[in-house]
């Protein structure tokens, strides 16, 4: 009987948590933002969340592109169509790997940092003291971090795709000797700007929204102890990764599925 009570309690806690996160997001984003105060805060967060994530994004993009080039070449050269690696690399990166891998790396690199930072602010009662001074922590602390994550993700995903395509070209064209004209030619004839590139951007926008939301919410909602912060950080990474992969399937089905 006890386990049934526990199960109900957990289910209720889950629903409550969803409700709190919705209210929390509304509280952070509602109201007219003060551009003069808010913009420098946003820029500062964009620096921490976006610019400092560039290194891991560029390096991973480069290696993923190079691996795609190598794998594509070994498989496609059996059929004499190794020039198709251009379109293979570009479509894989622009449609799937660019947005998804960027979002996963972003959740690990920036999302966890956001959660830990906000969680520590809560644990050291900085958020409560802001409230005491009449500053709304939702708008002062949470909103800039949320917007920074939301804006940085599409930029990072686009950079990831470009670096990956360049890495694939490095392996395919420079090292393995695929003709450069057909590498780009195949790519350009098969990649469409609206249905491939723009859909990839839409994906990364959605992932940015979800990752940033989960990260700031977990930080704001954590138990204000060191154990609470560590479990909130773990939850950020786990929930973000699961949400990204699940949403990716749904978005792919909507965008590229034939129904």
């Amino acid at each position, binding site marked *: 009987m006890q386990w049934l009570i526990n199960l109900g309690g957990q289910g209720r806690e889950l629903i409550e948590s969803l409700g709190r996160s919705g209210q929390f997001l509304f509280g952070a984003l509602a109201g007219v933002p003060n551009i003069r105060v808010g913009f*420098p805060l946003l*820029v*500062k967060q*964009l*620096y921490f969340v*976006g*610019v400092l994530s*560039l290194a891991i994004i560029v390096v991973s993009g480069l290696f993923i592109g190079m691996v795609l080039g190598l794998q594509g070449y070994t498989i496609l050269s059996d*059929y*004499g*169509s190794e*020039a*198709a690696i251009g379109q293979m690399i*570009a479509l894989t990166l*622009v449609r799937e790997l660019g947005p998804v891998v960027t979002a996963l790396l972003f959740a690990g690199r920036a999302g966890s940092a956001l959660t830990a930072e906000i969680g520590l602010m809560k644990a050291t009662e900085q958020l409560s003291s802001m409230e005491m001074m009449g500053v709304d922590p939702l708008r002062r602390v949470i909103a800039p971090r949320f917007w920074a994550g939301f804006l*940085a993700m*599409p*930029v*990072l995903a*686009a*950079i990831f*795709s*470009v670096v990956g*395509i360049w890495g694939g070209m490095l392996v395919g064209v420079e090292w393995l000797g695929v*003709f450069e*004209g*057909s590498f*780009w*030619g*195949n*790519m*350009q*004839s098969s*990649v*469409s*700007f609206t249905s*491939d*590139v723009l859909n990839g*951007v839409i994906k990364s926008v959605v992932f940015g929204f979800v990752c940033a939301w989960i990260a700031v919410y977990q930080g704001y909602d954590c138990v204000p102890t060191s154990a609470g912060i560590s479990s909130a950080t773990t939850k950020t990474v786990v929930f973000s990764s699961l949400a990204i992969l699940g949403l990716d399937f749904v978005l792919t089905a909507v965008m590229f599925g034939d129904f």
Partner: protein
Amino acid sequence: MAQRKADLVVGLFMVAGIAALLFLALQVSGLTPKSSGESYTLYANFNDAGGLTRRANVSMAGVTIGSIRDITLNRETFQARVVIDVNSSIDNIPADSAAVIRTSGLLGEQYIDVSVGGDTASLSDGDTFYTTQSAMNLERLITNFASGQ
């Protein structure tokens, strides 16, 4: 001062993102053609250009010597007119050479193979291949074979 530096770096970050998106638009999805190095132009008329595409390979003896710039329909003869960019270093293609459309591998992309002729004069900028051989259409071949023609 620190704020101004952050502004600058974040500005550069956003510019990099826009540049990446432009690259994806122009170079990857091909909204504009990429200009190549030193080359000269030859023309070839085909009855059937098949699956030949822009920027496809032009080779001679299996070595790439150029690429296809454009494929248009000649409105008088209803033939496909293919514009070929050939590397300037290959300036001695015999004038009676033939342009043949071939497929790389069984399922690969189509390209133009230049079969070398024996003429002492060579093709120069703006010339047209005298002999051409159109794309082999497997389906048509099978149809002809099946109907015994």
